[in-house]
């Protein structure tokens, strides 16, 4: 990675943080918290995004951010009122900035007029106010962002830039010439730590210099003011190619802190170093006798002249001589530096490498444990103890490493308030959003994948769930609907729940549509719960028209497939007239899974431990046949579908029926399924390897893993196994 790429990576990282901050700030601003701190924070965020964009030449982003920033600046100093309209415009602008950042990151081009309308509105708002104020008009933004700095010509022969000509006074032509410069610093110049010697040195880079110090009336010691300025300089600059603008630029920083007179002495006598005192031409302000009398000094002599002057100025109090002892006296030499730094930034790649290696370590550790048969255990007790400690430490290490990747869901949740606000606006409904458990932490990768599904689910709730205010009142509900977004940890999973107090799923309609679209066979009679779940079926959408809210042309099946991709599942439950609850069940981590190792035929399979409720010997289970040809078993009064994994995966099982095992698993929404396997081998942790990436998607299989003994085992997808059976029974 080149250095520039490194900087860019830092920049994009920073941008996403700033964009999140913008979302948060505007959520508060939108809620009426419009204090100066928020406005400043918002301004800074845009300012930082613009600053970095300028450095990388993302000119579209710079242009847009500049207009936005200018408006924010006007808003925070009160020149533009922060009306609801302006807030809405800003929120829209955040999106545009975000898109620009994304485009800059991927290198894709946005349409040329993208964001132009908003930009124009910013400019109009800013202009409108400025005009009323009679203040300076907002300057047209120079896309080149050319820094106004002097070319110091470090190699000594500073060529004047052609561009500089336009700034010159008429008397200072671009042609060669000799210059008389009179430079009288004020005390402010020293107070701001400017140094005449450096200015003169810089001037020397333009051409040949003759400098004479003009020592004014230095008073007697008794009247000597150490902060007063008693010295000025007369300078003759022989610089054939320079311009007045270039000379003025040398004094750019001290403008206003000194008197500076620059006079051109007619056409150049290039290269002729003429002592200024010898042949000083008449000048308008030639009233100073010292100019004639003072001997000319070389540059080094000048330095000697200046040094005492500086000591006499306020710029060098004794304290500065010994800053270190002073610091020691304050007693915070170390603390001052280290304070507040409690986190480090680490490249995600590095963390992932650690995660993977820890994963491999877990495998090796479990392999070692497996190798210990009873004989070895009896013989090497110390070794066994060591292995136990190793197992514990490995587990601890793994947890710690996972914690590094974990991030609070807040980063995703914080984007939702404005989504709800937009949705409320577009649908004309009144909706409030409640968020709970924002600090719940999930693996970073999961978080990144969470935004889209969550957006979709909330859109769905707002679009199909929450009723119109009139209807709500009619139904005796509060006019304002509530969408509750919550996150909690439940065992090895994170539950993200989107709940609304709307009308619930219209099951008749859902079933009708599902039948029409062939998702469900015409004669099938699915349960209410199965109907609810149908909204996630591919190609299913009850929306009469593709609304630009929930729609975007795709249905909730996208949610399901996205969530499945990150090893999670979705379950929906609805109460007619009361509301709908959608639950996302996500793994705490993507990399490692606690599993039960089982045998089916001669092959090892693994079942995620988190989904297992209990295991039962087949001899104790009561299977019953159902008319459709399937099997069910009764578990505490509940009928559970039985799936024989050997049959399901077309394997032959040699094990006696009575010696086989039932692994009772809980799928979504407490729906259970009983898997029949040949044997239970034990529990362990495995590192998940994607089957899709390495092979292809297989129904009923969630992935693969490499076991401690080097064998490959497939991970059973409990939910996926069940689904086709539902269709089968429905067909």
């Amino acid at each position, binding site marked *: 990675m080149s*250095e520039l790429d*490194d*900087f860019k990576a*830092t*920049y994009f*990282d*920073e941008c996403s943080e700033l964009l999140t901050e913008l979302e948060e700030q505007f959520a508060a601003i939108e809620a009426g918290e419009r204090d100066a701190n928020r406005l*400043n*924070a918002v*301004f*800074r965020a845009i*300012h*930082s995004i*613009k*600053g*970095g964009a*300028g*450095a990388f030449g993302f000119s579209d982003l710079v242009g847009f951010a500049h207009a936005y920033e200018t408006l924010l600046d006007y808003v925070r100093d009160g020149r533009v009122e922060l009306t609801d309209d302006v807030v809405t415009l800003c929120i829209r602008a955040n999106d545009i900035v975000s898109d620009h950042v994304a485009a800059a990151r991927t290198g894709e081009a946005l349409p040329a007029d993208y964001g132009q309308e908003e930009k124009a509105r910013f400019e109009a708002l800013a202009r409108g106010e400025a005009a009323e104020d009679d203040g*300076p008009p907002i*300057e047209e*933004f*120079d896309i080149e*962002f050319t*820094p*106004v*700095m002097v070319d*110091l010509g*470090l190699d000594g022969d500073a060529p004047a830039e052609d561009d500089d000509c336009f700034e010159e006074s008429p008397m200072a032509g671009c042609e060669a010439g000799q210059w008389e410069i009179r430079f009288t610093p004020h005390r402010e110049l*020293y*107070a*701001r*730590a*400017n*140094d005449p010697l*450096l*200015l003169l040195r*810089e001037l020397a880079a333009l051409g040949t210099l003759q400098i004479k110090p003009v020592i004014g009336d230095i008073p007697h010691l008794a009247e000597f003011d150490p902060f007063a300025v008693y010295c000025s300089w007369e300078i003759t600059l022989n610089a054939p190619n320079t311009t007045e603008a270039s000379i003025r630029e040398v004094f*750019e*920083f001290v403008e*206003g*802190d000194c008197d500076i007179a620059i006079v051109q002495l007619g056409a150049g006598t290039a290269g002729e170093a003429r002592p200024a005192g010898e042949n000083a031409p008449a000048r308008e302000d030639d009233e100073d006798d010292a100019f004639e009398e003072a001997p000319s000094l070389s540059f080094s002599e000048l330095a000697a002249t200046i040094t005492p002057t*500086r000591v006499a100025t*306020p*710029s*060098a*109090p004794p*304290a*500065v001589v010994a*800053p*270190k002892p002073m*610091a020691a006296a*304050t007693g*915070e*030499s*170390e603390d*001052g*530096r280290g*304070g*507040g730094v409690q986190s480090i*930034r680490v490249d995600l790649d590095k963390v992932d490498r650690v995660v993977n290696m820890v994963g491999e370590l877990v495998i090796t550790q479990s392999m070692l444990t497996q190798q210990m048969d009873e004989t070895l255990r009896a013989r090497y007790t110390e070794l066994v103890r060591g292995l136990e400690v190793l197992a514990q430490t490995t587990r601890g290490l793994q947890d710690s490493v996972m914690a590094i990747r974990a991030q609070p869901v807040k980063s995703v949740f914080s984007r939702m308030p404005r989504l709800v606000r937009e949705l409320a606006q577009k649908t004309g409904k009144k909706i409030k959003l409640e968020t709970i458990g924002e600090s719940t932490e999930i693996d970073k990768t999961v978080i990144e994948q969470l935004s889209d599904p969550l957006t979709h689910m909330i859109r769905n709730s707002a679009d199909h769930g929450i009723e119109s205010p009139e209807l709500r009142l009619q139904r005796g509900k509060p006019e304002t609907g509530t969408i509750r977004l919550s996150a909690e940890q439940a065992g090895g999973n994170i539950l993200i729940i989107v709940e609304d107090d709307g009308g619930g799923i219209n099951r008749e309609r859902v079933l009708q549509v599902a039948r029409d679209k062939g998702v469900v066979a015409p004669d099938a009679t699915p349960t209410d719960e199965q109907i609810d779940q149908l909204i996630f079926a591919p190609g299913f959408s009850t929306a009469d028209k593709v609304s630009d809210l929930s729609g975007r042309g795709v249905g909730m099946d996208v949610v399901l497939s996205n969530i499945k991709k990150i090893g999670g599942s979705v379950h929906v439950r609805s109460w007619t007239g009361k509301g709908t609850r959608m639950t996302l069940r996500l793994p705490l981590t993507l990399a490692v899974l606690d599993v039960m190792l089982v045998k089916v035929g001669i092959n090892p399979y693994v079942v995620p431990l988190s989904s297992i409720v209990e295991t039962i010997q087949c001899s104790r289970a009561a299977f019953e046949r159902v008319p459709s040809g399937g099997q069910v078993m009764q578990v505490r009064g509940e009928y559970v579908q039985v799936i024989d994994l050997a049959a399901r995966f077309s394997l032959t099982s040699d094990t006696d029926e009575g010696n086989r095992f039932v692994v009772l698993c809980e799928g979504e929404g407490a729906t259970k399924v009983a898997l029949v396997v040949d044997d239970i081998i034990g529990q362990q942790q495995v590192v998940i390897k994607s089957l899709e990436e390495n092979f292809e998607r297989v129904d009923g299989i969630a992935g693969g893993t490499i076991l401690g003994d080097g064998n490959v085992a497939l991970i059973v997808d409990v939910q996926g196994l069940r689904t086709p059976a539902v269709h089968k029974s429905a067909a």
Partner: protein
Amino acid sequence: MTLRVLTVDDSRTILAMLRHTLSNAGFEVLQAEDGQQGLDLLKSESVDVVITDINMPVMDGIEFIRNVRASGQHQSLPILILTTETSQDKREEGKAAGGTGWIVKPFDPEKLISVIHRVVH
């Protein structure tokens, strides 16, 4: 003698770029993320020049410069203001607070170094 530069900016991008450019030019670089951190650092570290952003949380650049000058120890410490403003306002404000000069973002490395040499020996 290696010159020490204190860079103060809330943008990690800018801090990183400054560090890169300045280190390559042989400067020793100290970093602070806001004015307060900068002030704290100056209590324990001696530096030859300060480069500071204006818009920062906690303590902005103007306040930072004012505090540095008011501390009584750093009147001759050159302080350069980093600014993207094309308008004069911020520079004037920075100068009034005691700023020595300014650097316009985005800076190109050569100019950054040359501006520093304008204010430091």
